[in-house]
């Protein structure tokens, strides 16, 4: 963090030739990157949505279960709500780890296809 791109780029210079987009999209490494991303992001999203909406659904439809004390006065409802914070942080942590892998894959796609991708890769250390 905190590093800046070293050279100034005119935005006009960055317009990539139309064929480059298709070349990247057709590349097998790019397809691997998309598959790897989907493999993490789809299940993670489904999991956090199910886990999160279980809370209002149970609070709304099974209030007696949620009112059961677990530790002293702390009941299922409050502990479940607290666990949401832990789960959200855990998913964010796992995503950060997976994403550094995605970054490397994206960098390698562009490097192998030798398309313009200046400054960013060396800046993001």
């Amino acid at each position, binding site marked *: 963090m905190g590093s800046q791109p070293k050279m100034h780029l005119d935005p006009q210079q960055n317009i990539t030739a139309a064929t480059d987009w298709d070349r990247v999209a057709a590349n097998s490494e790019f397809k691997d990157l998309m598959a790897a991303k989907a493999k993490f992001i789809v299940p993670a999203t489904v999991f956090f949505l199910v886990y*999160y909406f279980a809370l209002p659904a149970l609070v709304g439809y099974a209030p007696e279960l949620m009112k059961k004390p677990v530790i002293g*006065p702390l009941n299922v409802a409050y502990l479940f709500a607290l666990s949401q914070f832990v789960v959200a942080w855990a998913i964010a942590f796992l995503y950060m780890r997976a994403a550094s892998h995605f970054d490397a894959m994206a960098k390698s796609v562009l490097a192998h296809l030798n398309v313009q991708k200046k400054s960013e890769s060396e800046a993001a250390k």
Partner: protein
Amino acid sequence: MSTPLVMFLVFIVITLGITYWAAQRSAGASAYFAAGRRITGMQNGIAVAGDYMSAASFLGIAGIIAFQGYDGFMYSVGFLVAYLTVLLIVAEPLRNAGKYTMADVLAYRLSPRPVRAMAAVSTLTVSTFYMIAQMVGAGTLVALLLKGSGISYNWAVIGVGILMVAYVVFGGMLATTWVQIVKAVLLVAGTVLLSILVLAHFHFSLSEFFDAVSHVKDGAKVVNFLEPGLRYKPPYGALDLISLGLALVLGTAGLPHILVRFYTVPDAKTARVSVVWAMVIIGVFYILTTFLGFGAATIVGKGFIAKNGGQNMSAPLLAQNLGGDIFFAFISSIAFATILAVVAGLTISASTSFAHDVYENVIHHGEAQSAEKTVLVARITAFVVGFVSILIAIVLGPTFNVAFLVGLAFAVAASANLPVILFSIFWKRFTTAGAISGLVVGLACSLALIIISPSIMGTDGKHLINMVPLFPLENPGIISIPLGFIGAFIGTMMSKVDDNSAAKFTELEVRANTGLGSEKALAAH
């Protein structure tokens, strides 16, 4: 002069200093609108947290928990979990594909003029809801805080309005970002301090604290505040809870003033890092609302709060009870700072949207205008937005509930903005007609349902419209969010296949996932 006033003036002097510093560095459009894209991940994360923890969080949630216990804590949970949607789905593609506003991503593949015009309407609507909540919060706080200083609700609202215009007009995004950072640090420090005092009151024993929370005296009854059901009751309570959850979890990723923050960093990776920083700060803050809200319920008591400023004043009154007048002044000035910073953030996103989407792209057909002209238009918009929200806040008066107004802003954002953002990024077939119908249906349905809900309609004489509510839920999300998606879907399927949109989909997909061609940061001076 009273202590709170002095503390507040100190904050104003510091922030105006930041604005002066930023004004020297805000030449050019990218510098003005996106702070030159040179904000670091940690700085932006703190600023995102600052933009997010508004009057509704600090004053509103503490108040709801103090009055309705566990059900209020459901807001806290939703506010944090919402950032997973931002992190996993929206932040990185948005940073890679866009330039200054949310509409950049929508206009990427589609016909830019209608899409930008409609996205600007939606942005201004969401920002206005959010803004009114902050202005009303500021006015209410003043009424309690500066009692006897001669500053009334109306003057407080005018003062906040003028300051926010000053930050935005002179300092642009850079000043606004640093005001957020200062405010976020103060807010978290104040919250931690207040939580420690609450724990100290219970001899640093969590079990003593939670015992008290489970036996709160409410009039003659003893109520367990840890049990759900004090706010959301049958028959519609369960649906209302799910509806609120949907609005929070899907709405955050559609809030224009949060989305623009991701343009202030150099690249998508930094955008990701900033979301994670924001999640750490926001998570800690919302867990601590346990102590603010339950602390106010047990130590101060509902009855006293109701007679001394009402629900929204729970946190400041708790501070007064535990730390005396000086601490009360400290916490209240933090609440002020919070409001001021959020209002500045909203103003800059609204004025950026008008200058970039409407002025440059709709009026001038996307022909690049000189940076001076565009920035001038943004500054004029900031003036107008400030003036209009001062007027609305004065007309509404100090009694409107702030947390609730913000909940509605989330519902509008989730219904109108999120469906079209998701379809733009993930659906190849998506067309301009689909985007327009998604935005229109989402916006119209959420607003219409709010108007006929128990928030606006009621027969007790306290509501804007005196009749039995036609729609039973407080929050329209559970109906209006699916309708927004359906609107965008049907609009797309009824229009013919757009080859340009499909071809540009490949470009957007590559750009969003590799950062190829994305906007670069300005070089260091």
